[in-house]
């Protein structure tokens, strides 16, 4: 088993997720890209756990999954509130956080 393949896959997934966060306009798609980044980091953790032979990496992956779930709950709730008041799910429309 070649560990470097998995790490490269993880990097590619992470990059796709990062670019997606920056480029996509729909808030839900941005969220999905954030999930993609988290899963990419999970893959990397598990790969390295397998490489060193310990279980630390797999435990950390569990932590990451829990955090991701919590974050999704909060984030979707916020997006729902914004959609209800603005009738739009585009991130470009919520641009009041400026001087």
């Amino acid at each position, binding site marked *: 088993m070649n560990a470097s393949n998995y790490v490269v896959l993880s990097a590619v997934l992470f990059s796709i997720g990062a670019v997606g966060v*920056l480029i996509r306009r729909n808030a839900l798609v941005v969220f999905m890209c954030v999930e993609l980044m988290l899963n990419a980091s999970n893959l990397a953790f598990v790969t390295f756990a397998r490489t060193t032979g310990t279980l630390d990496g797999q435990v950390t992956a569990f932590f990451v999954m829990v955090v991701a779930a919590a974050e999704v709950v909060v984030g979707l709730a916020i997006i729902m509130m914004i959609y209800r008041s603005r009738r739009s799910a585009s991130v470009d429309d919520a641009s009041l956080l400026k001087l």
Partner: protein
Amino acid sequence: MTTLPALAGPVLSEAAPSAAEGVFNLLWLLIAFPLAGAAILLLVGRRGDGWGHILGTLTVLSSFIVATFLFVAEVGLSEESRAVQQTLYEFVAVGGYQVSVGLLLDPLSMAFVLLITGVGTLIHVYSMGYMEHDERRRRFFGYLNLFVAAMLLLVLADDYLILYVGWEGVGLASYLLIGFWQQKPSAATAAKKAFVVNRVGDLGMSLAIMVMFAAVGTSEILAVTGATERMDSSWLTAIGLLLLLAACGKSAQVPLQSWLLDAMEGPTPVSALIHAATMVTAGVYLVVRSGPIYQAAPAAATAVVVVGTVTLLFGAVIGTAKDDIKKALAASTMSQIGYMMLAAGLGPVGYVFAIFHLLAHGFFKANLFLGSGSVMHAMGDEVNMRVYGALRKIMPWTFVTFTVGYLAIIGVPPFSGFWSKDKIIEVAFDTSIAAGLAALLGAGITGFYMTRVMLMTWFGDKRWPAGAHPHESSPTIVGPLVALALLSLLGGAMELGFMPGGGIERWLEPATGYSETEHLLPTIAYPLITLAVVAVGVAWAWMVYGREPVPVTPPVGSPLTRAARADLYGDAFNEAVFMRPGQYLTRTLVYVDSRGIDGLVNGVAAGIGGLSTRGRRIQTGFVRSYALSMLGGAVIVIAALLLVRL
């Protein structure tokens, strides 16, 4: 002129001062009376307008009475133990620096006290009549009393720092009194000028006290003058020159002479008391009191002689061309004080005669000034002598007393000025031919300009302006004139041995030291030569002013006359050398401050404002751009961590 040889004067034969007891316990009253008078008169307000002038005169009279009691008591003491000291209270007590306020009464200060209180009382009586129509008369007497108190503190102080307090006090009183008619811009400017020029001298005084403290550890007069053997000669020369600077400021000697003629803007009693008899003599007192310092520092003593000689000629030349009677007398004062400084710089041979001339000058100059005040009063406050003339029949009392003062100042025997000035010329010749010749020439010029004043005022034709009706003045004005005229006539008797105290030389010798000089010519030659030179001056003045009528408009005159009218360009020199460069410097500094320093501070603020305006544009409000900057920041942090690992 070569440097005078180191003067090896006799050690002062005065014993250490004894503590005050008996009558001498009243010493502090001398200062307390006029000081209380000043406080009352200045604080009581308009209620005191009716009696203020009487109280003011009574306080100075009481000081004079106390002074005579003290004089009688002091004559009763033996010659070596005539110094009495009374300590009043601690002034400064800070670790190693202790100064207490104490009064020292010895023959030198006794002479001054009698002069100040005696002539002061006469001038106060004169002012009661002279200032009768002035509504601020009470304040005038308050300021006069303040002056007398400060001057007495100056001459009685036993510590240079306390002397400095009195020094500043007389400067303040002089400022207040010159600018008394404060609604006149010329008077206010003259008062400011007097104060500022005096301040330059005060700088010398305070530096001298600092040097004294550094060299000796104390500023007590007797301690400093007693420590001259232990001090390094550079310290002594420094102290001597700084004290000379102070004396020049107060006594209007070159180079700080420019304020005295402008000070004539003040009322005439002020000119008589402050700028003739007392304040301007404080410089001579300082030099004589610091005698041992000058004896141990020949360079400083030579400087004193040079200053005195230059000033006596300077003042005399200016006096020849002034048409304002008070300014002519003021120039004469400058010149006579030059004589005193010349004598004081010559060491123990000259101290006694400097003080003798100071006392005689106090009498006859106050007499002349008060007489001129009487004339001004009669001519409606007109000071220009070119519109006087033929007053002698109309104001006989003033004429006679003025003539007595005139004969005294030009040095005709048996008037007082002859005895004192003649001795100074004698001593000057014995020490340095150049100084002697200058003093002789000064005597001749004095004869010229005083005769000019006499001829223009009292003789000749009437040149009065329309509406003038001169009359003799009231008794309160004429009375002091008569008293001072008698003193000018008889003051020479101070030299006689049968006077209380044994004649002025024996009286002052324990305090100042006195030694005789070798005379080049027989003693009788000096007065004859002096009288001959004076006669030449008088005759010249008669030829110019006595034979033809005096023109009412001043003629153009020679370059020297025009220079003398412009105070020998003293004001022009001060303006060019000090005032204009000072103004440029101030303007440059203000420019640097407002453009440079303010510009720097304001520029920093503007720069930060500009930066923040640019930086504000990062806040776009777009979530995606914020996300991009977060990504960028994360990349930079990771790169930094990787670099550190490397």
